[in-house]
Every structure is written in C-alpha cells, then in structure tokens.
C-alpha cells in the first residue's frame, strides 16, 4: 500500500516534469546563491582568524613606532631590560607576500608557526632560514636563498612566518623592529613606556586594526544579498509546492478513499519533499561553490585594497559550509511546504479537486494579506524614526521588505481595477479583467521580482553613494599633489629647506595620540592654507570655521568622534588640558577612531614633542614628475618615501572597480532568479489557462494576437512591479545608509540618486520578464486549434 501510494504520488512529477524542474531548480538556485555568498564570507573570516591566531593581531596590546618608522633593536633590548615583557616582530613584503619575523622565545603563548612538530626548532632559530606558509603563498614567494620553505596549511593566506633574525636579513631591515607584542602579564615595578621609548605608542588590543570589525560592512552587504536571493528562491519553491499540492488533490482523495491513513500520506509527502530538498541542496551547494570560486578573487582583491586584509584567493571546501548549505535547502523546503502539508491534513476526505483553488484561495486571502502588509509597513515606519541599534536596523529592513512584498498583490490589484474600469472596447476590457484574474497565480513570482529589484536598487545606491562620497573624501584628504616622508627630524628640516623654493606650499602632517572625551583619538596639527579652505567640506560647521581655526580659536572633529561622544558644533572639547570649542564636523570614512584637527600653533604648544615627518606638497600637477625626479636625484630622497596623489587615487578607485564587479555579478544573478520565477509561474499557469482562452479564440481573436497579449501582460506586470520596486529600493538604501551603517560603523553616508542605474536595472527586469514570457506566449500562439476545441468537449 505504502509503495503503491508513493508510486501514485511520484507519478505526478512524471506527468509534470516542468514542475519538478521548477521545484528543484528554484531550490538549487536559492541554495547556490546563499551558500556561495556564505562560502565567500567563511573564506574571508577563516583568513582573518588564521591571521589572528598566528600573529596575535587584535589579541594583544602592541607597541608601535611613529608612523613610517621602525623601532631600533636597542630600544627593544632596553624595554626588556626595564621589565617590559614585549616580543619583537619584523615584517615587510616580498613578492606580494607578507613576511613576518617572530622571536618564538618571547612571543606570548600560542603565537607563531603552527604545526612545527616535524620541524627542527634549532634550524628555525639559527638564522639558517625556515619559512612557514601555505603552499599557495610559498608559490607566490618563489625561491628564497638559504631558506627551507615549509608548507603549513593552517597559516594565514599571503603570510609567511620565519625567525625574526632571518626576516631582518631577508627584508634588509637589520636591527629594525616593526612592532612589539605586549605580553598580557607584566612584572611588578615597570617604568612607564615613555621613560624608555618616548616616541613609541601603546595600542590596546582589539582597537585600531581589528580586521573583523573593519570588514564587517563588506560582509554585511554580501550576506544581505545572499539572504534576499534565498528568500526569492523560497518564493519560487513555495509556489511550485503549492501548485503541485492542489493538482494532486484528486490523487490524494483517491488514495485516502482506498484506505491509506492520513498520517502515512503526510509522512510520504514529507519524505518526498525532503528527498527533493537534499537533491536540490547538493546541486545548489555545488553551484554555490562555482559562484564563490568565481567571485572570490575579486572579493580578495577588494578586501586587500580596502582594508589591507589578506584573504586567500582560492576556495577551500569546509564541511561546515556544505552542511549549512544542505541545511538551508532542507529548512527552506520545510518552510515552503509546511503550509501545504497543514492544508492537506485538514482537507475534508472527499473535497472536490480544484486545480484553480490554489490561485483562488490566494485571492480570497488578499484582504488579510493586505492588513498584514499594512501592519508591517507601519512598524517599519515607526522603526525608521525610532531605530538606533543594529538589531533595530535589521528589523526595519525585514519589516519593510516583507511588508512591501505582501502589499504588492493588493496594490497591483487596485491599479488593475482602476485600469479595468477605464478600459474601452471589448478586447481591452477582457485584457484587464484577464490580467486581474491571473494576478493571484503570478503574485509570488512578482513578489520575487519586487524583492530582487528593490535589493538591487538599494544595494547599488548604497555602494554608489559610498563610491561618490569616498571619491570626494579622497579629493579632500589627498588635496596635495605629492606626499613625502622624512626619516628623521633633521632630514625633515632639510627637506623643508630644499622644497620651499620649489613648491607653492608645504603642508606638514603631524599628529599625536590622545584620549578625547573618553575615546581613543588622534589630534592633527594643520597649517592654515587655502588648500583646506577650498577642498574640505563640513557636515556641520560654525560660520568662518577655517578663519577661527587659523586663529587657534577652536577645533574640528570627525563624525565618528562627534557621534560617539555626542558632540555638536559649539560644544567644548578638552585637548590635553585646554578646552576648545568645536567649530566644525567633517566626514572621515574608513577611519575607525576619532580625530580632531587643531591649528599648528596651539598644536605645537600642546604637543611640543610631536615632529612632522610627513609633508603634503602643493605644486602644479604637471610638475609632479619633475619634482619627484629632482627630489630623488638632487636631494637623494628614496622613491618609496614619495607618493603622488594620482597614484593613491588610481589605486583606491581600482579597488572600487573590483567591488563593483562583485555587486554587478550579484545583481544579474538575483534578477535571473526572479526572471526564472516568472517563467515558471507562466508555464505552470499556461496549461490551466487554456479553458479561459478558448472562448476568446472562439469569438475570433487569433492565436497570434493572444500570444502577443500574453507577452504584453507579462511586461506590463513587470513594469508595474519595477515602478513599485524603485521607491522600495530607495527606502532600503536609506535604511542601510542612515540606520544600519550608522549603528555598525559610526558614520552616515549622504545618499545620492543614480537615475540612469535605475533605468538600466528596470530595463534588465523588463527584459527578464519578457524573456520569461516569450516561451509561454510562443507556445500559446502555436497551440493547435484542436487543443482549443477540445476545451469545449471536456466535461468539467
């Protein structure tokens, strides 16, 4: 009985292979996008974790030299001899690989190359040179003279670890130390750091350079994309399962009439769904792997460029990721199928088979759906004004998107009703009425399209706004044409003397670490110069802010500090014992800590020990190359101590192009999923629509015309949905920029609009809908007249 029942149930899929394909493909696509994005995120996180585990980044306090300098080894010894338990690290880059030299004897427990069990520690210490890295990194590093290259799979990508002595000779940094790791437990009776290394600064663990936090925004975007794609996929699956259930009602009725217990039937159907979920899940995870492997090199390049984070460019298969992909496929199917199973359980034994009942029921529930949508949108509206934290931000996103998706059929229905009322002529009237009639069957696919469109509009608005803001910010920060760094105060003085007759202006860049309003921050001393007045833009400022700053009459603070410490223009700020009024607040994107700018005169008074070693030079852009040459030839300044503005900008923008590659790829993928949803809905509806179309044909409308109208209807519905998606997408972008970003990173990006992008996206959505409708319309246009005639002979 069980076997016969199962065979009967399965026969449905044999008769409707398209539905089976829809179900499997929808689920596989959803799983693929989700698990692809997760794989990219997991790979990046694993890279950060490996870096933290092997290098102690973020785990321990660190002692750092002044910007652009190194710590002399004598200072390290002096610190140890004074009782500071610090461990030296000398690092640099070689062939694009980060070489990290450690001293295993003083490094805090757990640091250092992993799995050196088979290695000869004597060789590691002796300076004969053992280099530990992954095989990929060692390949990139190439052959190194006098070194044993040892493959260590657990190492952070792009990073090679060796003994500090060997690293110093390899990097030509003899007796130089890049940073010192501070052991957590320190002995009694230590003198203060400033007694031994007055120019050194102590950086607390978990501040400043914690990659996880910095890169969160990037991963957040990817995750949001993945989740939306999955939601769209689940809409498809839900539609397919619902349709299959309705169509199988006669089979179910017959089986139960033959004596199959309801429980067993439910178990059979659930087992059938789970089997499909597993098959689709495996396909989806495999596809997801392909997606991730394709995207990962771009993601890795973006992360390296934006944050200096080394992320492996090749994907590793992680069992946890496989399992989570399968899990989400099964979970998604369970969610999508639960409603259908529930209805099956409560169905009267001999309920008549109603192939259209599924669509009709959807129409009947429209009112409730409308109320629910309204409620969710009201909650979203309240949250938009009240939300401050990250959790509230995500709640806002969720209520907004779900509410809008649920409202879509109601709003579309209302628009179609208005159109139908205004229609003149029988064909137009039939067209609108038929469209309304079709709406319930298509609404799930249209919701998918709405969400995909809105997500694309929202995310691309956010990313593009970030690009515009960041480019403008780069112009502001990099207003000088050339930047030079001196080795020592003596060289700095000589540089200034050398450059004064050769440049329009020399802007010293000097800073000091300081705690401001209870938060770690850096204070900059700025020279009064037209450069700043013309390039810097404030988020908020007092009148004549630059003039008063030049007079030493106040201070400028960045947005992060102003938000964290709740400081506004006009508020007092204590810097090193002197209170300054805040004159202006400026945007400072990508910087994790607070910042304040003083005029150089009060700065020098407050921080007499700070010496400017970096300088921005203003000259005509066409003279940059000449000056670089002169500095190198006549002054003898090494090339690596000069950076020209164009170079930095080109690099930064290149990073953004890579980011956009990722965003674009995800745009196209999500829209494809939505297009697929439309195609499948139309195809499944096509067969059922024949009885409705046959009378129209019989009244004299040609099959070709019917086909065209089908196509027109799909494009029209897509157009309406796209039009509704635009405000939703903008609302989404606003929520991301004004709520989620502020909560996550402490700055609010101004929102820009990109009408051409939206047009292009709308065009893509329409194209997807048209392509999806093309095949069903063509099929309809070629329906044999006999099939249409048969409708009238069927007893229904």
């Amino acid at each position, binding site marked *: 009985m069980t076997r016969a029942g199962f065979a009967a149930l399965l026969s449905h899929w044999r008769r409707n292979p398209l539905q089976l394909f829809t179900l499997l493909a929808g689920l596989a696509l959803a799983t693929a996008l989700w698990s692809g994005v997760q794989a990219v995120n997991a790979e990046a996180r694993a890279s950060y974790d490996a870096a933290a585990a092997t290098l102690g980044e973020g785990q321990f306090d660190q002692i750092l030299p002044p910007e652009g300098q190194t710590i002399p*080894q004598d200072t390290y*010894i002096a610190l*140890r*001899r*004074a*009782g500071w*338990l610090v461990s030296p690290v000398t690092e640099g880059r070689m062939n694009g690989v980060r070489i990290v030299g450690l*001293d*295993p*004897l*003083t*490094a805090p*427990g*757990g*640091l*250092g*190359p*992993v*799995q*050196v*069990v088979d*290695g*000869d*520690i*004597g060789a*590691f*210490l*002796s*300076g*004969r040179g053992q280099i530990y890295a992954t095989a990929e990194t060692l390949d990139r590093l190439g052959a190194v003279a006098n070194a044993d290259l040892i493959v260590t799979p657990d190492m952070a990508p792009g990073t090679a670890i060796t*003994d*500090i*002595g*060997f690293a*110093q000779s390899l990097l030509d940094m003899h007796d130089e130390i890049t940073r010192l790791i501070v052991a957590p*437990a*320190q*002995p*009694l*009776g230590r003198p203060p750091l400033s007694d031994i290394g007055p120019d050194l600064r102590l950086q607390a663990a978990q501040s400043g350079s914690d990659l996880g936090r910095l890169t969160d925004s990037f991963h957040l975007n990817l995750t949001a994309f993945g989740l939306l794609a999955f939601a769209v996929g689940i809409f498809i699956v839900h539609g397919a399962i619902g349709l299959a259930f309705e169509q199988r009602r006669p089979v179910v009725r017959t089986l139960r009439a033959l004596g199959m217990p309801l429980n067993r039937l439910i178990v059979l159907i659930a087992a059938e769904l789970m089997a499909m979920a597993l098959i689709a899940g495996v396909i989806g995870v495999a596809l997801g792997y392909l997606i991730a492997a394709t995207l990962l090199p771009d993601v890795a390049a973006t992360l390296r460029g934006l944050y200096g984070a080394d992320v492996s460019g090749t994907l590793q298969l992680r069992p946890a990721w496989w399992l989570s992909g399968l899990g989400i496929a099964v979970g998604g199917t369970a969610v999508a199928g639960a409603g259908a199973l529930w209805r099956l359980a409560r169905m009267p034994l001999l309920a008549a088979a109603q192939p259209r009942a599924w669509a009709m029921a959807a129409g009947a529930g429209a009112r409730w759906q409308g109320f629910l949508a309204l409620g969710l949108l009201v909650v979203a509206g309240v949250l938009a004004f009240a939300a401050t934290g990250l959790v509230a931000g995500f709640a806002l996103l969720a209520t907004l998107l779900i509410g809008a998706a649920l409202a879509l059929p109601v709003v579309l229905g209302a628009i179609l009703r208005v159109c139908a009322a205004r229609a003149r002529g029988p064909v137009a009237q039939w067209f609108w009425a038929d469209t309304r009639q079709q709406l319930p069957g298509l609404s799930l696919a249209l919701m998918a399209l709405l969400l995909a469109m809105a997500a694309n509009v929202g995310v691309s608005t956010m990313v593009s706004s970030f690009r515009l803001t960041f480019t403008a910010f780069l112009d502001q920060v990099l207003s000088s044409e050339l930047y030079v760094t001196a080795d020592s105060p003596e060289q700095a003085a000589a540089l200034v003397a050398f450059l004064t007759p050769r440049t329009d202006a020399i802007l010293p860049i000097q800073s000091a670490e300081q705690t401001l309003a209870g938060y770690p921050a850096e204070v900059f001393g700025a020279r009064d110069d037209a450069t700043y007045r013309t390039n810097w833009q404030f988020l908020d400022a007092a009148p004549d802010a630059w003039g008063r700053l030049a007079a030493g009459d106040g201070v400028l603070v960045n947005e992060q500090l102003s938000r964290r410490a709740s400081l506004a223009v006009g508020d007092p700020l204590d810097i090193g014992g002197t209170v300054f009024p805040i004159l202006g607040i400026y945007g400072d994107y990508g910087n994790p800590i607070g910042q304040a700018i003083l005029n150089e005169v009060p700065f020098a008074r407050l921080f007499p020990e700070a010496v400017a070693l970096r300088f921005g030079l203003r000259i005509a852009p066409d003279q940059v190359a000449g000056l670089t040459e002169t500095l190198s030839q006549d002054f003898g300044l090494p090339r690596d101590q000069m950076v020209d503005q164009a170079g930095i900008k080109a690099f930064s923008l290149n990073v953004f192009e890579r980011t956009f590659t990722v965003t674009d790829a995800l745009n196209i993928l999500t829209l494809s999923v939505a297009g697929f949803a439309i195609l499948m809905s139309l195809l499944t509806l096509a067969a059922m629509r024949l009885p409705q179309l046959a009378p129209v044909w019989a009244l004299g409308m040609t099959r070709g015309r019917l086909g065209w109208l089908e196509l027109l209807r799909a494009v029209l519905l897509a157009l309406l949905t796209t039009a509704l998606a635009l405000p939703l997408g903008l609302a989404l972008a606003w929520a991301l920029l004004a709520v989620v970003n502020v909560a996550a990173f402490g700055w609010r990006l101004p929102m820009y609009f990109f009408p051409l992008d939206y047009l292009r996206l709308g065009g893509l959505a329409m194209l997807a809908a048209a392509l999806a409708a093309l095949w069903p319309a063509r099929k309809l246009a070629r329906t044999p007249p006999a099939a249409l005639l048969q409708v009238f002979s069927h007893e229904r």
Partner: protein
Amino acid sequence: MNVKAILLAICLPLAAAAQGFGGLGTNAAGFAVPTPGYAFDFPADAGPHPDYRIEWWYVTANLTGPDGTDYGVQWTLFRTALAPEAGDGWSSPQLWMGHAALTTPTAHYVTERLARGGIGQAGVTAAPFAAWIDEWTLAGPDNAMQMRAAGPDFAYDLTLSAQGPLVFHGDNGYSVKSAAGQASYYYSQPRFGVSGTITTPDGDISVTGQAWLDREWSSQPLADNQTGWDWFSLSFDTGDKMMGFVLRQLDGASYTSATWIGADGMTAALPDGALTATPLETHQSPGAKVPIEWRVELPARGVDVTVTAINPDAWMATSIPYWEGPVRIAGSHSGRGYLEMTGYE
C-alpha cells in the same frame, strides 16, 4: 602547537625515560666535555662557557622576616647551547632561561623568562661580574652582589655578601654524576649573607638570611638511565653545611654524592653510597606527587636528620617543571636549607 613547547621539547626534552631529566642525558657530540684535573681560572670561570652544552648560575636563599617568618628565594639563569659556539646577533645558538621564585609558608610565586643570546637580552659577563635576563640581575662584586627579579605578583631586591671561600665539589670541582663517569664542573659559594626586601601582593617585607650560589656546567651530566635527582643544600646551626644529591635510576638504584663543608672551612667530598635519603612523606603538590619530608643520613659525619618542606606546594610550574623550596632541618642537627626534586611526574 606552541613553539615554546616544541623548542623545549627538542632542546630540553622532558624526562622521556631514556633521556634523563631535562634532556641532560642527551649526547654531547661536538661540545666540550669535563675532564678531571681542571684548573679553575677566576674571574673567567664565573662567566659563561659557550662550548659546553648547559650551564647555570643558581642562587637559593633562606630568609627571615621581622616577625620570624621563614621565606625562600630562588634566582636561576640557565644557558643552553644548540651548537658549541658563542655566535652573534639573532643567529647565536646560545639560549637563556631564567627562573625566579619566592616561597612563603603559605604561597609560592614563580615566573620564567626565555631569551636568545647574541642580542643583549640575556647573558653573563665575568668581569665585572653580571648575569642577567631582561630586568633580572645578579651582578656586582662578591661582597656586594645585587640580586633582583620580579614577576606579575612578586619581586625581590636583595644584596648578597660573601662570607667565606668558594667550595669545589667532587674531585676539586670535577663532580661525577654516574657510575659510568658522566660529570660536570661544579663549585659553590655556600656562605652569602643576605639583606634586602621581598615584595608579595600584601606589600614589602624586609628580610635577612643566607644564600647559596651553585655554578655548574657540562655537556652531558646524566647517564641515559638516570631519571631525576633529589638535591639538598643544608645549613646547620653549628655552622657546618652539607651539599648532597641522589640521582635516581630507572632500575630503582641510585647514585649519590655529598660534600661536607665544615664551619672551620675544611671541605670533604663523600663518595657514592655515603649519603642516604629516604622519603618519609609524599604530597600532591600542584604538578606532581613529591616527597616533602625526608630522612637524610650521612653516618660519616654523624648526620641523621629529618628535612621538611616549609611550603609543600613549592612547585616550579615552568617549561621544565620541578619542585624547589626552602626546608627546615631537625634531628641530630637543626637548621635550614633548600631542597630540589626533579623528574617526578
């Protein structure tokens, strides 16, 4: 895997039975080996001997606070060479390890330091004498030697003043460690007067007392079948002192050696078997079960005493763990001393 653990596992293997305690039983290929009839040369011999594999500067002190409380202090600098050469910079094969401890009747504070030779972080110079690792020092002339160390929860700052001549153990400083002939160069300064300050989490305490410096270097002082030792430095109230050790063997037998240091300045080396040490009571200290009360007999000198740990939990939880702490002596003689027990698991 922690590099430090690997380093120590390779350089100073933990009592893997056939290797002896602390890797001291490993082969001495390439390193110099002690020979009898060595003529000590001071001050040079107070400094390091890089062509020998291991060496130590080892101070233990029995101290008393103003209220009569007993304290013990340990300051130790070990040198281990990966190759028999001094070397310079990071590639020097000389590695240094410091252990410092402060023992009270109720607490035992211990900490450890590791350092590379060749960069100045740790080392020893013979003249003027200075031994250091990080901020820990043992430096100065014999009559005013400064001894300092600190950990996260304790510190001490003591001045040592020699009150007698150096004592050379075994055959004029050639100290045999097994029947097979393994040996080290070994001398001591057993009579340092001490004064200074110790610091515990409760504050500073001024202390006075006596300290004992051991100097020993070798390349292979233990036989393969020796698993650890019990070492006693006993200062009797009569003014006589005694150093004795028992090297335990895998087969249950042992090899003993002792030096009698008379109050009159005469010293005498006592051969294998002259000393017996019998555990009377064992105690589960933080790292291992160890005897914390011993019967020590040296019949040739009429010694039959009970040696009892002042703090049974004086466990040295360092890379190479062992027990080291101050003891009280009762029986035929009374007094105070230090006990070191290695190779217990």
